[in-house]
């Protein structure tokens, strides 16, 4: 065996554990679900799958709950740019020498290394309508009938959006901090000498310089939000009255509550196509605003 071949083989051996894991747990189930979306297979029914063509997709567009889940999934995209913007501003502030700088960095980043489910339950307590601290505060400032948050179909989605916005800030901040510390100070110094204000520095110098980071956070943020499942499911299970049912919860319920694997696969692949479209649009659009 030549040296080159041996090197290649060693390379494959090194990536094998991860590659095998990915194939068993991701690639094979994904291909399997691709096949299933054209069938009517019901898990644990003793029946083999029957080919039904595009019936699952026809059923999907007629399904009111699917339409609700599409709307809700689009809504959960809103926290992504907001948390990126807030993460950026906090990172800029904490990049300068401030009082308790390191403590504040840890404070903002804490939600990222804490279990998502634990955070969800903290939010559940914060938003508790009767005894929760948020409503207690609102009552103390004169709001006589504060929102019911997760307990009302009218406000549950807003509570989810607030939770997701707050949850994203810490991670975005830490990534921006890394970008800011890599940034050359020469351009900033030059702009300052030319009389640029802080706002102009932010808008015209800093933000364009960290635009590749912003692009990365937008791509991963949108994908993460569309796939988002755990925290919402832990608190509301998609309720009350389906008001927080997003794509992933809709697909999960179809698959694992009702065992409708064919239909659930069709929903999952639709979710994949939407993520793909949004990502492609972002890739195309980035040429206009991302500066490398």
């Amino acid at each position: 065996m030549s040296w080159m071949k041996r090197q290649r083989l060693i390379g494959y051996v090194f990536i094998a554990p991860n590659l095998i894991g990915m194939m068993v747990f991701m690639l094979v189930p994904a291909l399997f679900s691709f096949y299933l979306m054209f069938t009517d297979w019901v898990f644990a029914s003793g029946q083999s799958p029957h080919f039904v063509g595009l019936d699952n997709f026809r059923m999907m567009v007629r399904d009111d709950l699917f339409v609700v889940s599409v709307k809700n999934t689009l809504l959960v995209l809103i926290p992504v740019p907001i948390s990126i913007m807030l993460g950026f501003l906090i990172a800029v502030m904490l990049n300068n020498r401030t009082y308790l700088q390191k403590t504040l960095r840890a404070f903002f980043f804490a939600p990222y290394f804490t279990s998502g489910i634990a955070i969800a339950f903290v939010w559940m307590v914060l938003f508790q309508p009767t005894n929760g601290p948020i409503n207690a505060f609102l009552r103390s400032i004169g709001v006589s009938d504060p929102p019911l948050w997760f307990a009302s179909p009218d406000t549950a989605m807003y509570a989810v959006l607030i939770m997701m916005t707050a949850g994203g800030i810490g991670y975005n901040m830490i990534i921006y901090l890394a970008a800011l510390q890599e940034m050359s100070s020469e351009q900033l110094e030059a702009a300052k000498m030319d009389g640029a204000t802080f706002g102009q520095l932010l808008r015209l110098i800093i933000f364009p310089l960290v635009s590749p980071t912003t692009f990365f956070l937008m791509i991963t943020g949108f994908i993460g939000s569309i796939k988002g499942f755990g925290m919402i499911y832990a608190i509301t299970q998609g309720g009350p009255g389906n008001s927080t049912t997003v794509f992933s919860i809709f697909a999960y319920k179809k698959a694992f509550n009702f065992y409708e694997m064919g239909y659930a696969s069709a929903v999952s692949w639709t979710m994949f196509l939407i993520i793909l479209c949004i990502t492609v649009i972002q890739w195309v659009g980035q040429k206009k605003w991302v500066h490398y």
Partner: protein
Amino acid sequence: MRNRRWMIAGLALLVAVPLALAGCGAKGGNQTGGTSPEASTASSDPIKLTLWGAVPSENGPQEVVDNWNKQNPDIQVEYVRFVNDDAGNLKLDTALISSQPVDMYVNYDFSLYEKRIKAGNALDLSKFSDYNVDDKMGEGAALWKVDDKYYGLPTQKGLSFVWLNKDMLDAKGLPIPTEWGLDEFRDYAAQLKSDKVWGLAQSDYYFNVPINGSLQKQSLQLTKADGTSAFDNPLTVKTLQVYFDMMFTDKSLMPHTEQITSKPALDQMFVKGETAMLFSTNQIFRTTNNVQEFPRTFKVAAAPAPKVNKDQSDYINAGGLGDVISINPSTKHQEAAWKFIQWYADGGMLPMAAGGRVPSSKDFPVDEAVALMFKGVEDTYDLDSIKRVMFGDLPLGLSRLDRKTGTEQQAVYDKAFTQKLTPEEAAKELARIHNDNLKALSK
């Protein structure tokens, strides 16, 4: 045919492998992956059986299998617990189709039981002629027949009833109800509530108990004579209106959506005196009997589940026979499993009584079960009312409402109790969902 089998097995494996590797597995193993006759026990190794059930092992099942294992060294049983929720049932169903070690399992829900039968995962018990199920378990057992056959043995009376804080009732001069409707139920809750005490707490989505109980006599599928949904009727509307008034007019019941998002531990609310009444099942015994961990100073009494109207003659009490034990047809030891199940039903399940399980077999030593149920805590119960409810002769029912309808109807209750739908609109919506699923099932 052969290809089809391979395809089913392959599909099952593809779904099962990640789940199994993710920690769904259990120890041991006895399955062959296909139906096989009783294996020879020529070797001296004992037969090993695995029983899957949802009761925590420390609440009786472990003692049951320990007792059996001592008496039957040739047949050793291991208990595996699954949680009786969607994820837990998925785990059991995955284990059943992927030939993981499940020799026997307990069904708690008719819809899932029927699904497992149709999937070929429950053995037809008519092959065993040494046990007359109807004779032993009474007429309530027949509700578990599918195509006129038993695929599992119902072993306990599973009732829903109202737990009462008798001291609070006494303080208000209220007698323990022996028969009541929702109007009286509401009145009790309103009188018993105070600043820090709810008049009533109830398990999530228990509104369907009086609603379904009013429909079961005409059809276990809760349909009308023409086969369409029976949900849209004045009794449904009244039930929704009464519960709505309890939540928002009387404020004697925690608002429903607040309960499902706050997820309070209802059993602990009851023993701590934070609610005067609790509408739930006999599973609350696990908490009320555990006076070391949950000390209480009041006496517990019981009242039957309320009808919609007190004078309603066609009401079927919520609950019937339950804990239906099935045998996995692919076990190598069907005879041994059947032997265990008979022993369990006729006496072996005695340790489960402490957790409130009332055996349904007529051969069961009921006095022993009652003695064990209240051992050491007799003085903390109003035994007359408890016995009247748990061992009385209320008509038993078993809803055969399909699981999907039941789950989808939860969103209607959410909307009804957040004023998104009026009771009349909600009743119509319950019927619409039911009709849609009836149509889908008939295809």
